[in-house]
């Protein structure tokens, strides 16, 4: 593995290796001394063209726990906001000797481009690109499901997962569908037809327009963030109607099996796709998702940077 650009490029063995490694990292993170010397002398750049404090901090903590040097390169207050291109930024980072670039970008495919355009030599980790993918989020979601539903072992064969909300604009949904399919889970996407991409029937999952039909049949339900501004583009009539038809509130949660977990990639829109009551309930695992995110990202950084570079270099 040289880069992590898409959850779809992970085969089952590699995905399980990452999850197993993350489990070890998680155990190490419970010690009083949380720092490991593994990536001493390596430089990880967080290159964020989009604001996402939580994802950046998660990567930063993961890299620091492995003793890597971390440079945060934010679009705001840097040459990027003055209009420096991704390419020029990349060349700068290359000159500084970045071993890995963790990139969050508004443009779908920007990490792929960064990895393949011969601008840099280091590893590229996709921390969310446009409406395309967010592979480490899918990995931490799979990790969380495995821990709760499979005792932290093996893959996710037979686990039934509902993903509800703005699938069209969701990189989390895309990465989850791909990874969960690789790990053997059964996914049902739930959304109004306006928020499902054209061609969804070819995706390796089921699709439903009705959340109430799906809730009783799942082991995990993932609520996606829905921006209320979407109604301006006529994706749905009003935030109130969206919330009524697709939001997860206390009453509706009773349809969920008792063992099922409620997930959300954050940040939550309480009152929109999820009610405060559900978000704070015992079945909600959002806080744990955050902690698992650090372990999964440590695993990814270790597996990308912890060994020799590929022989092709």
């Amino acid at each position, binding site marked *: 593995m040289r880069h992590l650009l898409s959850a779809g490029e992970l085969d089952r063995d590699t995905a399980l290796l990452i999850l197993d490694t993350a489990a070890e990292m998680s155990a190490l993170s419970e010690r009083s001394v949380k720092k490991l010397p593994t990536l001493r002398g390596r430089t990880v750049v967080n290159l964020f063209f989009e604001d996402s404090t939580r994802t950046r901090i998660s990567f930063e903590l993961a890299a620091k726990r492995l003793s890597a040097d971390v440079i945060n390169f934010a679009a705001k207050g840097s040459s990027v906001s003055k209009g420096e*291109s*991704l*390419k020029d930024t990349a060349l700068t980072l290359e000159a500084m000797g970045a071993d890995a670039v963790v990139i969050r*970008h*508004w*443009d*779908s*495919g*920007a990490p*792929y*481009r*960064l990895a*393949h*355009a011969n601008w840099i030599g280091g590893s590229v980790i996709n921390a969310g*690109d*446009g*409406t*395309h*993918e967010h592979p480490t989020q899918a990995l931490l979601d799979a990790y969380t499901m495995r821990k709760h539903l499979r005792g932290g072992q093996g893959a996710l064969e037979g686990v039934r997962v509902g993903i509800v909300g703005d699938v069209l604009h969701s*990189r989390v949904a*895309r990465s989850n569908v791909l990874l969960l399919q690789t790990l053997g889970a059964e996914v049902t996407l739930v959304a109004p037809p306006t928020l499902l*991409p*054209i*061609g*969804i029937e*070819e*995706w390796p999952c089921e699709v439903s327009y009705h959340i109430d039909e799906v809730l009783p049949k799942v082991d995990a339900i993932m609520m996606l963030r829905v921006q209320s501004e979407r109604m301006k583009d006529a994706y749905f009539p009003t935030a109130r109607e969206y919330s009524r038809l697709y939001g997860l509130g206390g009453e509706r949660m009773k349809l969920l099996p008792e063992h099922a977990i409620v997930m959300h990639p954050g940040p939550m829109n309480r009152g929109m796709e999820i009610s405060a009551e559900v978000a704070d309930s015992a079945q909600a695992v959002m806080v744990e998702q955050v902690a698992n995110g650090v372990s999964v990202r440590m695993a990814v950084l270790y597996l990308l940077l912890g060994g020799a570079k590929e022989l092709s270099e």
Partner: protein
Amino acid sequence: MTAIVIQGVRPYGEDAVDLVINDGVITEILAPGTGVGTIIEADGLIALPGFVDLHTHLREPGREDAETIETGSQAAALGGFTCVHAMANTDPVADTAGVVEQVWRIGREIGLIDVRPVGAVTVRLEGTQLSEIGAMANSAAGVTVFSDDGKCVHDALLMRRALEYVKAFGGVVAQHAQEPRLTENAQMNEGELSGKLGMVGWPAVAEEAIIARDVLLAEHVGSRLHACHVSTAGSVEVIRWAKSRGVNVTAEVTPHHLLLTEDLVATYDPVFKVNPPLRSTADVLALRQALADGTIDAVATDHAPHPHEHKDCEWGSAAMGMLGLQTAFSVVMETMVEPGLLDWRGVADRMSVRPARIGAVATQGHALEVGALANIVVVDPDARWTVVPEQLASKSSNTPYAAREFPGVVVHTFFEGRPTVLGGKIA
């Protein structure tokens, strides 16, 4: 002035002859080896009327870093063209007699091809007020083709008026069919792949809906419509239906829409970013069929040079468009001639005769006969070549065909009886 003899050439791939040119006109067609004058070897090569491009972005004035009328003229001549229509989306926009005359004059001075300026339909391409179509038509440039290309004349009323107004000047409105609301921030063909790649889709219906509306408008007002760069199977159906009703509509297809498909977008390499976007294999096959049966009248390059920095970047920031002049003939050969969809007379018809007629260019698209103006291209159908972007004459190098091998080489080009290209080099 001595005669020029294109010796042993096969017009339309038929029997070998000597084509004798005097004072810009084909004066004699003789048995091979019998013509007297300056001999230009063309044994076994094929002569066709010089190609006419209905859709070229020469970028001058305004973006001379991407292309100039001079470099564009060279690329055109090397591609076998003797006439191109220079699109109006320059800076300033070609929306006045002044701008179109300037472009036309520079083209004349360079003298490699006919540069026929296209006039903007609306002022600054803004889609709100008609530009001075009459002034441009009556200028020295004699503009006949009007287009806001790059943008769609989406206001139905304005489109109706434009179609009506150009009738007075024998003009045609060339529509870039793209419903703007359906294509906001669109990046690629909308379909399964756009959903997977997380890219905003450019649905086929956004093209088809505008073409459907416009053929009905053209029928209603009795005017002439030309559909630019038709890219979908649905558009082909609409045009076929309109022609069967007797609507005065013509259509063009680009070489890249005859050859390339949307799968290339998965590389995220912006060299494949173009508007309208690359479509599905089914669309490509429908377009080839339509060009073969004449539903689509012409091949037009949509040659769109962009400076390196506008393509060597991430997809979303990249400019749309690709070079086309020097590869057009080879693409047509690979997609139409080799599979048997077009013979050489068919190539002449779709790349020269019909585009000249659509653009009302009286001096182009003549049959290779005694008395015809000598705008001629001589090609080698048996030779192959490999595209090296930096070696193209264009100032830009955004060809999607880097390192690709093609059949068919343009060997000589004659413009108004003078050789502009000899042995594959500017004469």
